[in-house]
């Protein structure tokens, strides 16, 4: 029977919530950084790009450890944040942070490519019509980059949904709090008789990944179809 147990449902719902929130929270930062990299030349740009790529190039466990050092209860930033009641370590919010960090480079890369492809001459036209830099961004650059933003969001969502190494290192595996779907699969694999659970969750992961990708292709494709240049 393909019926998920209560624990499995919990892991699925948590994973969906963590992945969605990670994309939503990182979006403003990704938009700002993508715009900066696409439109501005500044000293240290290469370093910023290299730092942004780190979660892609580093082993996820190392990223998780770095998050622990920075945002753990006694971490450099974590200790300071704790004064305001903001705690990431061993909380679901920490899983969101880990997922956001891991998906961030994919989000920025897609959005930046979309920004790069917007015809700068349209922005010049808007400028002569009195539009400020902010208005040009909101009314020209952003709408013409919709497809890239959607693709980036799906990639980041998929990366966040499948995130394992950084999450388990940073927030461990606490049922209902930080035990996401990949962690649940990993734990079921080491349990006697856990194989059927592994299979069920694997099928679920496959369905979510396919649904996200197909949904993005349909939405992105239809936008692309409407957006033929003049």
């Amino acid at each position, binding site marked *: 029977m393909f019926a998920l147990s209560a624990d499995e449902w919990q892991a699925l719902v948590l994973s969906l919530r963590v992945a969605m929130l990670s994309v939503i929270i990182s979006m403003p930062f990704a938009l700002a950084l993508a715009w900066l990299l696409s439109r501005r030349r500044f000293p240290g740009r290469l370093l910023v790009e290299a730092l942004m790529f780190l979660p892609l190039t580093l082993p996820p466990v190392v990223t998780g450890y770095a998050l622990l050092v920075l945002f753990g209860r006694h971490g450099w930033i974590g200790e300071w944040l704790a004064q305001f009641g903001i705690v990431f370590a061993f909380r679901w919010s920490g899983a969101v942070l880990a997922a956001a960090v891991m998906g961030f480079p994919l989000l920025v890369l897609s959005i930046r490519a979309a920004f790069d492809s917007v015809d700068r001459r349209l922005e010049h*036209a*808007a400028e*002569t019509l009195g*539009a400020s830099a902010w208005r040009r961004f909101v009314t020209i650059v952003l709408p013409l980059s919709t497809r890239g933003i959607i693709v980036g969001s799906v990639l980041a969502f998929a990366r966040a949904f499948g995130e394992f190494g950084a999450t388990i290192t940073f927030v461990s595996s606490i049922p209902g709090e930080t035990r996401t779907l990949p962690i649940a699969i990993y734990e079921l694999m080491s349990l006697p008789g856990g194989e059927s659970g592994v299979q069920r969750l694997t099928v679920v992961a496959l369905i979510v990944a396919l649904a996200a990708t197909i949904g993005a292709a349909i939405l992105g494709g239809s936008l692309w179809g409407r957006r*033929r240049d*003049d």
Partner: protein
Amino acid sequence: MIELALQHTLADLDIDIRFSSAARCLALFGDSGAGKTTILNAIAGLLRPRQARIVLDGQVLVDTASSIDMPSAAREVGYVFQDGRLFPHLSVHANLLYANHARQRKATQFERLVDLLELAPLLQRRPHTLSGGERQRVAIGRALMSEPRILLLDEPLTGLHREARVQVLDHLRRLKHALRVATVLVSHQADEVIALADEVIRVHAGTLTAQLDMAKFQSRGD
């Protein structure tokens, strides 16, 4: 009244030009690659000139010697680009109302332009569904909706087929008489210049070779 002194270096051209004109429609006439569009871009604030002083009706738009460089968005120019540059994701209606404060303008201004440029049947359409002539008419309307202090027309008829060219030229002529907006027209076609301009500046290889009234321009057989 426009006063312009511009020195600028492009990859394959050194521009060094100086003129002043009080003509309502001033034409910059010359071959392609002579630097005419660069002059328009300097007036519009779309390039950072090496050295320039441009004064429009007594207001300094740019003066590199005094480090004055008014942002393009504040210059109140209406720029009609050679390729239209309509915003592809917006309807014709939204393109027309894009200019800052255009929405606050009297509805009569909008209606008047829609009427003069015969845009009513196009308002709900997207730019990619328009013909070349229709696109240029919308671009002209969009530039004028902001009630600019000066209208810059960069080869507005280039690339249009004969019929569309005649139509747009006719619309421009009507606008000239109806709206009385100071205009700088860039063109390499003598018939456009004769139809629209009150004074002509001949530009060759980035320099002024002659400043002519229309009688002299036509008598020279240009």
